[in-house]
């Protein structure tokens, strides 16, 4: 019924949605959407590195994104520039440098659109392995640091006072962010990864009353977005990333109607 490539894309997308669901909730709670963007933009450098060195794309994106995150932390300590300016500086300069390097690599055929917006044709069996194994590891680590990370998201001083070591949890979470970008770049594309993180989580916020429920709804929202988006992509021959994100937006708009109705009921 479906071509092999479509099944692969579906399995890959479902794997990605399981991980972006819970991570996306933390991105919203901790106000990290611009930070996610910065890491995603820097991923282009990682991709070019992978092509020049004939290296695994996911691994090289993971390394570069982690380095950018470390650079950001160092810059925050050493300059008086506000956090968002530093994020913008790193995001756009790493994107620009990545594009310039691509310009030099004339001997390699590059699918820029695929990199920026995702390409389901490009998902290989190896990618599936990276997404599912990598995703399982990310979720396992997130489960292990859940308590200190969540407690310090609610209130840093409470977490610190009661011995939960929030700084370590935050550092590990930063690495997890780099990892999710590395494994989802082929599916969603580097310009839209943050959308995959925050839109299903934002939808979930509208309809949930507890953090656990928000995580579950966020995963469900992500899964629905991937399935809807990929079918649209197949049907209308659109890029996979924008199709998935548009589906997510559609679900978010639906969740707004839910709120309006409950407000009406209250009055």
């Amino acid at each position, binding site marked *: 019924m479906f071509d092999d490539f479509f099944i692969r894309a579906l399995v890959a997308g479902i794997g990605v949605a399981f991980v972006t669901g819970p991570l996306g909730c933390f991105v919203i709670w901790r106000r990290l959407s611009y930070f996610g963007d910065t890491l995603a933009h820097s991923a282009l450098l990682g991709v070019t590195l992978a092509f020049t060195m004939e290296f695994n794309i996911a691994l090289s994106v993971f390394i570069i994104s982690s380095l950018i995150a470390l650079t950001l932390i160092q810059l925050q300590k050493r300059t008086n520039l506000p956090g968002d300016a530093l994020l913008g500086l790193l995001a756009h300069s790493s994107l620009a440098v990545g594009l310039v390097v691509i310009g030099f690599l004339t001997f390699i055929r590059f699918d820029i659109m695929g990199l920026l917006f995702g390409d389901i044709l490009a998902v290989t069996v190896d990618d599936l392995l990276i997404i599912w194994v990598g995703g399982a590891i990310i979720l396992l680590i997130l489960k292990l640091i859940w308590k200190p990370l969540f407690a310090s998201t609610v209130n840093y*001083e409470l977490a610190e006072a009661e011995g*939960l070591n929030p700084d370590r949890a935050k550092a590990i979470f930063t690495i997890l962010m780099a990892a999710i970008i590395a494994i989802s770049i082929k599916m969603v594309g580097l310009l839209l990864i943050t959308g995959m993180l925050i839109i299903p989580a934002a939808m979930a916020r509208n309809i949930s009353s507890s953090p656990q429920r928000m995580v579950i709804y966020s995963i469900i929202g992500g899964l629905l977005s991937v399935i809807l988006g990929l079918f649209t992509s197949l049907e209308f021959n659109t890029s996979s990333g924008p199709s998935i994100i548009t589906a997510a937006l559609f679900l978010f708009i639906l969740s707004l109607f839910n709120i309006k109705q409950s407000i009406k009921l209250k009055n």
Partner: protein
Amino acid sequence: MNANQNILVKLKDAGFKINDKWLVQGVSLQVEKGKIVTLIGPNGSGKSTTAKIALGIYKKIEGEVEKYTNKIGYVPQKISIDWTLPLRVNDFMVLTESLKNEIIDEALSLTGVIHLKDKNLGDLSGGEFQRVLLARAISKKPELLVLDEPVQGVDFTGEIALYELIKRISDELNCGILLISHDLHTVMSATDHVVCLNGHVCCSGTPMDVAKNNEYKALFGEQASQILSRYEHRHDHIHTDEGKIKKN
């Protein structure tokens, strides 16, 4: 190292400064099991800072902090919670430690807010939230409780009941309590040791010691709100603005 097995936390000549301005300096105190130590002093005298030094929230400090327990319950003076989080009272109770349902219910009942268990934290009043904060801190049966003005915003009868509860918890759990309070009546009736701060330790001792102090007697009849602002000792120095010290 810890000669006295009962000591939970010990500050030795501790101080903390931000941008070269000392918030508090030269504080020595210790909290033992089953004992209540109360910090009093005017606004900006370094009470909350001292509590945060004891808790290890401030790390770049002068002097030494020795902490002998990790089972700590903390009620901060100010807490800003981001309402982008969907958080019910029930979720907040298990924030730093997983607890059984019965234990959560018991703690919420003790502070009189069991009926709010499934409410959104953002929908509570100030006094209700304060009771939830206290319930959360005691529910984990800590060895050390740090309470920074734990009854602020609580109604008058509730205030008395909560202080009685704090005293009872200290006896029942044999836990040490570091209390910051503006209510001198409570301080005098329930505390084992009083430390009066004003950027440094002005005086300290048992409540009786402090009560014998002439100035203390003079102010004991004053309106509660004025007690602390008029609280003065026999000083060899006077206090200027921002808690600076000037020798006479």
